[in-house]
């Protein structure tokens, strides 16, 4: 009889309780509501999607339309003609090619990439070490230091442009890519520290302690838990790239000609003689496309990365 009691204890222990997430997801998918509310919601979403995508659609089509055809407006009341003009045209790549052959856009594209990626990598690397120190460290004034770091993001970027310009001028950093990288790091680094600290907080400290007791040094223990934070690192890296890529103010004020980035170059296409819509729209497409691609590629990890830090174990 005693042996059966023992085996009973064994099996009770084996059961792994299923997580609640599965049940909750089922509930959401099934949903409950009348058909009308379903139709209304779908209708609203459809309108919103169209509203969001129309600017991109127009930008892309205008970039592909031959010169002059973009502003070829249909007669008033001619709805059929309007629709036709929206969708029917002979696409041409002349605007895109002119950007790169005549307007030096390959250089501007490279500048954007270097400045955005450079500052993001620096921000993430140093942001990781700083966030780790703030998350784990125990020292006087830590709370104040952390608040000061993230408070630098509270000030509008415009407010620091003039002083930053003066400093860069004295240091000879104007019109240089390194200068631009530094400028972007100014606002990317506090952001990275802020977000990454949350991710480190979500990793229990006794994991590193277990590594240290097992035989690793403190640095090795930190490296061991970095894989747990990698989704957060990736998300922050992408966000930093996005912020730096889309920046106009710093690039315009401090980039000059040698370090001109895509947003500034696009604006520069507006010449005194007139606006070449085809070319400008092509420039806009070139500016937007890399970020869109990036977003699509890491979409899955972005959500995971951004929400991971929110749930405390």
């Amino acid at each position, binding site marked *: 009889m005693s042996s059966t009691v023992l085996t009973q204890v064994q099996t009770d*222990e084996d059961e792994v309780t299923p997580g609640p997430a599965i049940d909750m997801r089922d509930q959401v998918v099934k949903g409950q509501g009348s058909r009308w509310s379903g139709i209304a919601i779908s209708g609203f979403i459809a309108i919103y999607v169209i509203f969001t995508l129309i600017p991109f659609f127009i930008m892309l089509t205008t970039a592909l339309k031959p010169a002059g055809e973009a502003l070829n407006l249909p007669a008033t009341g001619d709805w059929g003609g309007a629709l036709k003009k929206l969708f029917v045209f002979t696409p041409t790549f002349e605007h895109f090619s002119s950007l790169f052959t005549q307007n030096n856009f390959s250089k501007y594209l490279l500048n954007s990439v270097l400045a955005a990626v450079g500052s993001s990598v620096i921000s993430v690397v140093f942001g990781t070490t700083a966030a780790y120190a703030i998350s784990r460290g125990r020292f006087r004034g830590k709370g104040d230091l952390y608040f000061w770091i993230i408070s630098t993001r509270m000030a509008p970027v415009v407010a620091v442009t003039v002083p930053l310009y003066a400093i860069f001028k004295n240091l000879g950093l104007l019109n240089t890519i390194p200068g631009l990288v530094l400028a972007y790091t100014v606002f990317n680094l506090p952001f990275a520290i802020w977000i990454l600290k949350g991710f480190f907080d979500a990793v229990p400290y*006794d*994991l590193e302690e*277990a590594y240290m*007791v097992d035989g690793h040094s403190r640095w090795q223990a930190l490296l061991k838990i970095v894989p747990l934070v990698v989704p957060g690192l990736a998300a922050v890296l992408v966000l930093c790239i996005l912020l730096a890529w889309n920046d106009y103010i710093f690039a315009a004020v401090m980039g000059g000609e040698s370090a001109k980035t895509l947003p500034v170059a696009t604006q520069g296409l507006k010449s005194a003689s007139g606006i070449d819509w085809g070319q400008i729209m092509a420039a806009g497409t070139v500016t937007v496309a890399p970020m869109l691609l990036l977003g699509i590629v890491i979409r899955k990890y972005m959500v995971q990365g951004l929400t991971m830090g929110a749930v405390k174990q």
Partner: protein
Amino acid sequence: MASLTFNSVWKRYDQVEAVKDLNLDIADGEFLCLLGPSGCGKSSSLRMIAGLEFISAGDILLGGERINDLEPRNRDIAMVFESYALYPQKSVYENMANPLRLRKMSKDEIDRRVREAAGMLEIERLLDRRPSQLSGGQKQRVAIGRVLVREPKAFLFDEPIAHLDAKLRARMRGELKHIQKRLGTTTVYVTHDQLEGMSMADRIAIMREGVLQQVGTPQEVFNQPSNVWVATFVGDPPMNILQGELQGRDGGLTVVAPEFRIDVPTAQAGSLSESKLADRKILVGVRPEALSISSARDAAHPITGRVYAVQPLGDVEVIDVRVGNDRVLVRAELGTVANEDVDATVYLGYHAQKLHFFNPTTGVAIRSAATRQTAVSQPTT
């Protein structure tokens, strides 16, 4: 395997003194329990041994050597954490093999040790699983397995079974004790559960608010508590403490209170009369097991009280009796008092040889020379 010594160790967190002047000797191979409520400094003391906390003052010696300045990995200790701290990306096998891989052991040796430890803990079938696929009890065994594969100078346990259900805890108490006896490794075990300390340890070191209260075998701590706080902390249900005034009567001493009178046994009368008591006030302690209850008043049951509640516990029952304003718990055979007897008048008797006396101002126990125990006993193996 080695001895462990605390020499006047202090731990301060800014202004807070978590551990105050701790002096403790742990013998080679001994199972010592650090017992106390939350915030008493037991975890801080354990983590100072591991090297996870700086030592504010004093020295800790492991195997006779001062380890204050050594990093955790160089101290040759293994630790089981309260939250298990298993490596989430590794399999159970890799979790247990990790400390051995760091020490550049041969693959065969690692495999042998991991499987041996897994066998001891009955987790062989789990070796390929990830921690997220394990139940709480299984995770805890893996955490213990990670510690068993090594042969360190000391095992450190930080409330390892706190988060398991009662039945599993009872089983693990036996298993941990068996493993420790079999391996003979010096073990320091931190817990707030006095039952774990009493059932598993060779000696218990009880701490309160950073100060060591008493060190002794479970027997010593239970039967000869050094102060009133230890007396009520160890033992379940806790010891009853009654207040009274010491008076001389018929050539002997009696503790007198409005509701009762307790005669002081002659053996202890001498030390009581010598001790300086403010206003001759005194505390009398008597464990629920040392009390008896009866419905009739007689010489053996002189104390009057009223039944407040009855808690049947299967084979015994604990009766909550109101004596004046005091609450007295009595342990008796099942069926002595029925649930309906609330407010019934009952009479209590006490075992004269099992009385404890405490100084109300200091809380320190007053003992006769014969039963007096020094506050810190010598280590036994």
